[in-house]
């Protein structure tokens, strides 16, 4: 039965953006252009947005349960793609999953997607992998799209100039039932990184520097657009790392305007436009950039030359510092709340105020996650590990089955195993530990993942976030180490 609302729906401003022509009127941000294209109607300050792509992982069972309870069908099953990643084992895939609750999560996704007619990239698929790795890899992620998934790191897909953000289970159910979402228009924040990055400094260091600057909640309520020469020079892998951790700065979405790097990366991928559609898409994508003079609600500028390899020392991603720095003294924080937080962080992490970051001993390494598990990440880690031995145990989990095959073709797997690390299958793995890949209590892990929250990698686990090259350097010395002090072949 229809529900009468307090106000009649009002049509949105007609958007002059259909087709490949330039926008008419006031200078507009990239975000605004994508928003307008997807706005169906407005009501009481909320916009009903059309969603082009939806990815569903094992955690979607709550949403499917909700649909079943309401007796509702899936509105557009061909716009949703199922991906098994959060609970999948990263070894012994030829054997049944030993933990019945974990096995059930993987089975539930197969059942739910199967019943709804949703295409699944499941455990047995040659294209399986982490959703934020395979979406782009398959060409499902494209410029100008709205993309959602019940995972906060959906911001990753913004690297292609898409508006991509994480949603909760209720919103997953809403997208399944309607292919739309009610959203309040977010504000815009432009992060400009000028200049050139030093050798040994990667996209991971840039985003950790950004989060340290604006804080773990600094981007809340905003969509971030990353721009400037240092961003332009990043590969697609680097841009994905950057946009991935926008949520660690509190921003639900991060984006980079598409350019030749983007289209070159996408061309020929499974779901990328082909034939006559390819030049049409290219012409459209060329309009997807913030116009000169477009106004952002906030602006932040960083100088690439001032960014060093970063590591985190605390239990929030904002607790990041250059590797040549020291653990801060909680007493140095003026704000009482921050002081208390720093004290708790240091107690949890087992670190002392003023302790140099270089030299902190580690027990284990993890190379993987939707942040840093792509081929370029594995190459960067392997370049440091080549001909060397890891002093600590650790696992390397490539982001997808395709990345795994590519790495094996390049011989990277042999570099990792020769160094003493385990070469695993693709999944979320030790970033979140849902599949049982856990850091034991009290152990210190140098990790390429995205969150250093207490207990994130396992109860009592101590996480230091850093780039793949920095994790490799820590493996080689058994301590947090400035990768720039090691000889690395290009």
């Amino acid at each position, binding site marked *: *039965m*229809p*529900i009468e*609302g307090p106000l009649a*729906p009002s049509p949105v401003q007609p958007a002059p953006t*259909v*087709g490949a022509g330039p926008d008419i009127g006031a200078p507009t941000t990239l975000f605004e252009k994508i928003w307008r294209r*997807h706005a*169906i*109607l407005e*009501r*009481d300050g*909320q916009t009903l947005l*059309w969603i*082009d*792509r939806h990815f569903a992982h094992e*955690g979607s069972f*709550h949403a499917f349960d909700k649909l079943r309870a*309401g007796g509702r069908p899936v509105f557009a099953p*061909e716009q949703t793609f199922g991906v098994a990643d959060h*609970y999948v084992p990263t070894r012994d895939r030829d054997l049944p999953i030993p933990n019945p609750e*974990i096995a059930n999560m993987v089975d539930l996704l197969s059942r739910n997607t199967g019943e709804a007619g949703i295409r699944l990239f499941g455990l047995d698929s040659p294209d399986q992998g982490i959703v934020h790795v395979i979406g782009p890899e398959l060409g499902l992620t494209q410029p100008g799209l709205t993309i959602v998934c*019940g995972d*906060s790191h959906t911001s990753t897909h913004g690297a292609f100039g898409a508006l991509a953000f*994480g*949603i*909760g*289970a*209720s*919103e997953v159910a*809403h997208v399944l*039932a*309607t*292919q739309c979402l*009610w959203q*309040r228009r977010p504000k815009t924040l432009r992060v400009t990184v000028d200049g050139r990055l030093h050798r040994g400094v990667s996209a991971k260091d840039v985003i950790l520097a950004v989060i340290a600057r604006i804080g773990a*909640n600094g981007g*809340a309520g905003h969509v971030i657009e990353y721009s400037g020469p240092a961003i332009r020079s990043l590969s697609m892998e680097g841009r994905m790392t950057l946009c991935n951790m926008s*949520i660690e700065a*509190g*921003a639900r979405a991060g984006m980079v305007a598409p350019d030749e790097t983007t289209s070159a990366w996408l061309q020929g991928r499974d*779901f990328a436009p082909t034939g006559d*559609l*390819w030049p049409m898409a290219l012409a459209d994508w060329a309009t997807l950039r913030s116009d000169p003079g477009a106004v952002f609600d906030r602006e932040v500028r960083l100088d690439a030359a001032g960014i060093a390899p970063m590591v985190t020392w605390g239990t*929030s991603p904002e607790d990041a510092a250059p590797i040549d720095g020291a653990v801060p003294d909680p007493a140095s924080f003026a704000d009482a*709340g*921050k002081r*208390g*937080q720093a004290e*708790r962080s240091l107690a949890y992490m087992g670190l002392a105020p003023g302790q140099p970051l270089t030299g902190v001993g580690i027990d284990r390494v993890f190379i993987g996650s939707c942040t840093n598990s792509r081929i370029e990440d594995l190459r960067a880690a392997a370049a440091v590990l080549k001909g060397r031995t890891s002093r600590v145990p650790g696992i390397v989990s490539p982001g997808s089955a395709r990345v795994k095959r590519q790495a094996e073709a390049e011989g990277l797997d042999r570099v990792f195993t020769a160094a003493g690390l385990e070469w695993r299958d693709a999944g979320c793995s030790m970033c*979140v*530990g*849902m599949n049982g890949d856990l850091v034991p209590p009290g152990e210190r892990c140098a990790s390429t993942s995205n*969150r250093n*929250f*207490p*207990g*994130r990698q396992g*109860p*009592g686990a101590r996480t230091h976030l850093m780039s793949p090259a920095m994790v490799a350097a820590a493996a080689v010395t058994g301590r947090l180490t400035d990768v720039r002090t090691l000889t690395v072949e290009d």
Partner: protein
Amino acid sequence: MQPFTVLTAVAAPLEMANVDTDQIIPARFLKKPRASGYDNYLFHDLRFDPDGRENPDFILNRPPFRTARILVTGPNFGGGSSREGAVYALVDAGIRAVVAASFGDIFFGNALKNGLLPIVVPAEIATALRAALVAEPGLELTVDLERQVLRGANREVLFSIDPFRRECLLKGIDEIDLTLQYRERIAAFRDAHWTARPWLRTSANP
């Protein structure tokens, strides 16, 4: 959804900033069915020691706060993972409102869709409220969503919730029902969208 109108209840001061959703519900509990009672997992690793014994220092384990239905906490509550289980854990434990200077965006949205009211107040007010709740354990606060006011501890604090969300909460409206009223407009939009950009139709792809 359970409607939210006026709530008067004991409020607990949670003196922590950046309480991420991994703290609210650790990942290992997310495979549990909702019917198992997500209150069992709320703040699990803060409430219990590794042997499963209650931590007597944790605020929600202390007598006047065990029945708290309102939390007053530090900034950036609910940042991190999008897991709606964090909201289920609070709701199943009887918490219907969280007061803080700021929230994680995704948590904020998830809360509103489950009848949990996230109330943004200036940081100094959140701090003063927590101090009052520490000074007088068991103090009750009143949340009036219709008037968008938080009362108690000798204060009246106005807050703001999007009209759309407020309407849904007050009436307990199911958002999917509401959206499906526009089914025809959605379908018309989709057709025009796909005509303008024919490569968006994934069914045309492999």
